[in-house]
């Protein structure tokens, strides 16, 4: 049987903060990552666990002054079914639908995805591409961390040991389009080989040039990354075949994925370039 580390289940946020101020805990939300870690097959299990599942103030999805705010404990299933997500950021619902299968979607949370900090975290490129703001809380108050600063190194986050991730705020930018693609071995239950999120602003004309292009990828580096050189290629360019060719070739040069159990560096580089090419083609309707 797996190890069963001691666990505390606070009922309120102040109670959770007080526990975190006194000792180091590993938080558990939906448990889809942590309950695998307590088997001990993936490194050391945590010494002490803080069960935050009852902190209902960390649940729910709302629109708040030009941003969609998603509570850290919101599950993939809730994101998938949310009418607000469907209206304002459908790419988030598409991404949630690619994660695990229904059993995982009923338990896994967007906050857990961010804090687990896997380079393959399926929602993370979307957070980067949309300039999401991650709100952390502790007994000392709240602070906002930009997605670009949230994953400083492999499997690390910018959270201090006494902080919890409370919610994620995604700015709603008029005229912004967001697209999401995940490549895995199969459609369900697959850890990604490449994840891509692309956001840009443009007018109604599908041939118009793109502005403020944000391209983010997962599973191609030690952390989820933006691809600034390829963004520059796409910036102020219309979605034509020539643009797609240039962007795809730029992306293949820009990223440095590795060989591992799930895929090879060559495949990841080739498929990332191909997926980007196809995204541009779909938008340009050529």
């Amino acid at each position, binding site marked *: *049987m*797996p*190890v*069963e*580390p*001691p*666990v505390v*289940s606070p009922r309120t946020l102040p109670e959770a903060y007080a526990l975190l101020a006194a000792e180091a805990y590993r938080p*558990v939300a*939906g*448990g*889809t990552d942590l*309950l*695998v870690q*307590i*088997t001990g*097959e993936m490194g050391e299990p945590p010494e002490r*666990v803080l*069960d935050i*599942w009852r902190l209902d103030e960390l649940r729910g999805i709302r629109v708040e002054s030009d941003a969609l705010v998603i509570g850290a404990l919101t599950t993939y*299933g809730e994101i998938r079914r949310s009418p607000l997500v469907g209206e304002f950021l459908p790419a988030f619902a598409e991404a949630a639908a690619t994660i*695990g*299968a*229904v*059993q*995982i979607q*009923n*338990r896994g949370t967007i906050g857990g995805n961010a804090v687990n900090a896997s380079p393959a975290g399926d929602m993370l490129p979307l957070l980067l591409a949309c300039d999401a703001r991650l709100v952390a809380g502790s007994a000392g108050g709240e602070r906002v961390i930009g997605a670009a600063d949230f994953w400083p190194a492999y499997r690390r986050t910018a959270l201090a040991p006494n902080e919890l991730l409370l919610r994620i705020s995604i700015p709603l930018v008029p005229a912004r389009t967001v697209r999401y693609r995940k490549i895995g071995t199969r*459609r*369900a*239950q697959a850890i990604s080989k490449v994840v891509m999120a692309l956001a840009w602003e443009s007018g109604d004309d599908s041939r118009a040039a793109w502005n403020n292009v944000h391209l983010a990828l997962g599973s191609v580096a030690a952390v989820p990354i933006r691809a600034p050189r390829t963004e520059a290629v796409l910036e102020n360019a219309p979605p034509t075949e020539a643009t797609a060719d240039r962007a795809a070739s730029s992306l293949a040069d820009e990223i440095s994925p590795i060989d591992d159990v799930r895929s090879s560096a060559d495949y990841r580089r080739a498929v990332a370039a191909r997926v980007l090419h196809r995204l541009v083609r779909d938008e340009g309707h050529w």
Partner: protein
Amino acid sequence: MTYRFVVNGDPVEVEVPGMRRLLDVLREDLSLTGTKEGCGEGECGACSVLLDGMVVDSCLVPVCQVEGSSVETVEGLADGAALNDLQTAFLETGGAQCGICTPGMLLAGEAFLASGASATDAAIREAIAGNLCRCTGYTKIVEAIALAAQRRSALQVE
């Protein structure tokens, strides 16, 4: 710690560590061995149960999070010796072979039927995408769920 919840309609109370997996509480502490352990890491769905009506992998749920909730396992489907309509459909179509995925398939099937979604082949396949059948008998399992869906909607019409 003491945790109280409901299993197949009956209140239960267990004195166990809070990080014990719901799977182990069901099998070891409550002797409900119908729920199977396959991979133990949320890949195979053999340990699927309904938690407050939603299908989950019981290997990924710590019992501290089950306090006050309602759990349904495969033992709760039949009424005594009388199998329910989904179990009967599995038998009729040949949806059970070696049997290890069957309890999880049944619970994933129950969650799908309860969702009221239209029982298309694609929708059923998505609903059991988190359940692996090592005998690869998926076609018969999909047929069983479709058959039960058809019978339940016929009952509703009457």
